[in-house]
């Protein structure tokens, strides 16, 4: 394709370099035997992985990040899936308005949402940081939960449920044998996407943190600001490896493109 469309091909190569090459440099410097973030790395060693894994602030905040990501994913699905059902299967006037209302956290900058929650819930109402972090992350994930599970339902025919009811199935039985199987891939995609979105989040966690509830990305930002050693490169490489595993799981189960097909719209 390169000979036939030289301009487009050149731009594409530049784009891929900008997207991918910095990530490769992170991995390369993580394996250095030297003391500083330097390129080319001095020697080969796994010492910085050992240091990162035994550095308490990283490991402590990793646990916090996982707790927040798991709980807020479950919460977002627990309140989001019923909303999807109401929008796509319920007797709902103004369905479009309701759907947009649930997507609205996406259009307000996350830093602004973080500031709002900080001022109103932490400062004014004196709620602890951890519950507010959960509330904030869940509000952020709600649009993904509603939209991604909604995509699974929108593509299916409601007359399937009507047929089941007509044949004498109870509403509960109809839900578990017809609606739930239709929803399942959507719920799985939404869960993956929500977990990753929460785990990687910076703006909300930054504004809502306390010393005890710092998440891993924030701890890494702080660390980079203080010291210039390859420990952050090592923890970054581990995060990269975990992300690759999640991507492969996503590809093998629901398909990568399917999960992200809805993001851009």
């Amino acid at each position, binding site marked *: 394709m390169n000979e036939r469309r030289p301009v487009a091909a050149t731009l594409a190569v530049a784009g891929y370099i900008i997207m991918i090459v910095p990530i490769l440099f992170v991995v390369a410097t993580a394996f250095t035997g030297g003391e500083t973030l330097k390129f080319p790395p001095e020697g080969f060693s796994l010492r910085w992985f050992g240091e990162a894994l035994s550095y308490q602030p990283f490991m402590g905040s990793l646990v916090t990040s996982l707790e927040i990501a798991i709980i807020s994913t479950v919460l977002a699905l627990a309140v989001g899936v019923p909303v999807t059902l109401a929008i796509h299967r319920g007797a709902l006037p103004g369905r479009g308005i309701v759907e947009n209302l649930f997507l609205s956290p996406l259009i307000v900058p996350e830093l602004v949402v973080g500031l709002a929650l900080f001022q109103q819930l932490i400062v004014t109402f004196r709620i602890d940081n951890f519950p507010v972090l959960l509330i904030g992350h869940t509000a952020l994930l709600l649009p993904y939960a509603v939209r991604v599970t909604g995509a699974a339902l929108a593509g299916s025919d409601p007359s399937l449920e009507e047929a089941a009811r007509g044949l004498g199935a109870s509403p509960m039985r109809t839900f578990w044998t017809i609606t739930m199987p239709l929803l399942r891939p959507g719920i799985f995609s939404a869960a993956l996407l929500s977990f990753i979105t929460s785990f990687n989040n910076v703006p909300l966690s930054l504004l809502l943190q306390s010393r005890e509830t710092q998440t891993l990305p924030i701890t890494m930002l702080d660390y980079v600001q203080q010291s210039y050693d390859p420990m952050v490169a090592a923890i970054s490489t581990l995060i990269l490896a975990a992300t690759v595993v999640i*991507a492969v799981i996503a590809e093998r189960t629901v398909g990568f493109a399917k999960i992200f097909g809805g993001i851009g719209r």
Partner: protein
Amino acid sequence: MRSRFTTALLLLPGLAFLLVGFLVPALAMLLAPPGTDTADIFVRLGQMLTDPYDLAIIGRTLLIGLIVTVVCVGLGFPIAYLLARTPSRWSGVLLALAIFPLLLSNVVRTFGWLVVLGSNGAIGQLLTGLGLVDEAPQLLYTPLAIVLGLTQLFLPLAIVTCYSAVTQVDPGLDDAARGLGASRGRTFRDVVLPLSLPGIVVAATLVFAGSVTAYTTPYLLGGSGNRMLSTQLFTYSSVTIDWASASATAIIMTVLVFVVSGISSVVGRKGATA
């Protein structure tokens, strides 16, 4: 399922969450931050829109946002076009490579630029090693570094959005234009580009909104000399604890995003009917 009562019951927990976790705090913030008068916010807002220091930050944020938008669409559309229109055994891998960064932490992705652009980084070492310069040039903590970092962050979003736009244009139309004697360039310009325009507008909006609100990149790559609205907002709310200024900055940021989204949805609708 069909009754109004059940529907209301299904919506209730979600609505409660949305109110407590988003709508009420966001609205309350504009009216009364703790210990501050609403009037103070608007006084501060007025100052920011006239003070040269604050205006420079707003201007820098806008300019960087615009440059990143142009670069991301300029690189992202050709990539999406090639991926959609020249199927080869590599296109699946290349598409996956373009989507994958969306899953990866912004901190990890941005950190890479410290290794590339830092004073002991790859570019500096390469240039001095080749004897092209005596001393590594200052690349980190410059607007260029922010632009590169934000381009890396938002290019995948531009590609994915443009890709779904291009795949919706019937390839038969390309063939028809080519068959009628249009050159490859003309087919692209007069057929593919106008038909994918709504998608391009959406991509540009998403990239712009992301760039003017991103925090990690200006924080790590901009240093203290290249402040943007996002880093200012954090300083006001968590370092100097200046609620009025924090709220005013938040208003400016939100209005920027809303105005651009509004303009683009009008442009997108016109483009779709034209």
